[in-house]
């Protein structure tokens, strides 16, 4: 009886495993789209060539993922394009955040400089 229960459990686990490996990569699709949308919200800080390269790669892979997921013969492969797209978006986003930090620091420096000059004038 116990053997039978174990066998059923194993079969069930196997079935779940097969089903999950063949699942449509919806989560990866959502992640990739969300990651790209997050980058695009950083509009003013996306100017550098490095960011544009990663952004272009993210867009290309996302398009390819969307194309592959629509076909029942290729939808499983879409996962890799989505994952690569999300990774490229993450890189672009990280550099965009760095660019924004640079801009803020530069503004702060510019703001500080006249103050220092005016103090020198007083002295």
């Amino acid at each position, binding site marked *: 009886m116990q053997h039978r229960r174990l066998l059923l459990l194993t079969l069930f686990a196997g079935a779940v495993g097969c089903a999950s490996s063949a699942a449509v990569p919806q989560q990866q699709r959502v992640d990739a789209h969300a990651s790209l949308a997050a980058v695009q919200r950083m509009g003013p800080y996306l100017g550098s060539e490095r960011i544009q390269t990663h952004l272009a790669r993210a867009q290309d892979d996302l398009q390819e993922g969307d194309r592959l997921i629509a076909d029942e013969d290729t939808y499983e492969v879409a996962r890799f394009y989505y994952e690569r797209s999300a990774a490229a978006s993450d890189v672009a986003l*990280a550099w965009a955040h760095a660019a924004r930090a640079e801009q803020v620091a530069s503004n*702060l420096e510019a703001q*500080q400089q006249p*103050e220092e000059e005016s103090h020198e004038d007083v002295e």
Partner: protein
Amino acid sequence: MKTWSSGLSVFLLFGAACAGKTAEPSKSLVRARVMEQTVAQTNVAELAPAEVSKAKKLLANAEIVHEKKPDSNLERHLANLAAANFEVAVAEAHRRGIESRQAETLASMSTKQSATLEAERKARLAAEERLRGIATFRETDEGTVITLTGAVLFESDKSDLLPIAKDRLREVAEALAGRIGAVPIVIEGHADAQGPAEYNEELSKQRAQSVKDFLVELGVAEDRIGVEGHGEKDPIATNATPEGRANNRRVEIILDDEA
């Protein structure tokens, strides 16, 4: 991704143990390894530990796949993800470094600002001390109000400054050097209650104008000074005694520090 990668690791470890052979790594894997070494030689792991840890896990998975299926698509894929995550770590570390330096700058600016405010406060106290007995100071919502009181400013029914009034105003201007002229000033003239109210209002305005003219003579920019005549409306003493009336014939200089 974690679910399949952990299952995959177990499977491939088994496969690698059986195969036991080495092969050339893909370009992607080489790139990811180089990035790992580059990151290890800097303080990136210190500034972005979570990002580096994620990248290292992906690279470890890529290495496992490489052992089992060299130069496979999966190896390249995992290596690419690892390389991307190492770059995220580098960018994050760069940003955190900037923000850390910025926080130091802001802290130093705040210290400087505090020092400036303290210096201004001391200068104000020194000016008040110097002018004690000549004028009174009040901090109000309108700004700093300096009141020059007494009959020494103007004779009754006159708007010309007495010689001693000029000395006082000169002392006020010297004591407040840096503030008078730097901020907008309003000079309010006040009169005692002798005579008609309209006449007193005009007289008080002429008195304020006399003070303005003298300050302009001392070099204060004319367009920084406004003039108002309040007549007998705001007495500060009784109009029933000569001494009270003398104090009501006063001028108030208001420095708008907030402007």
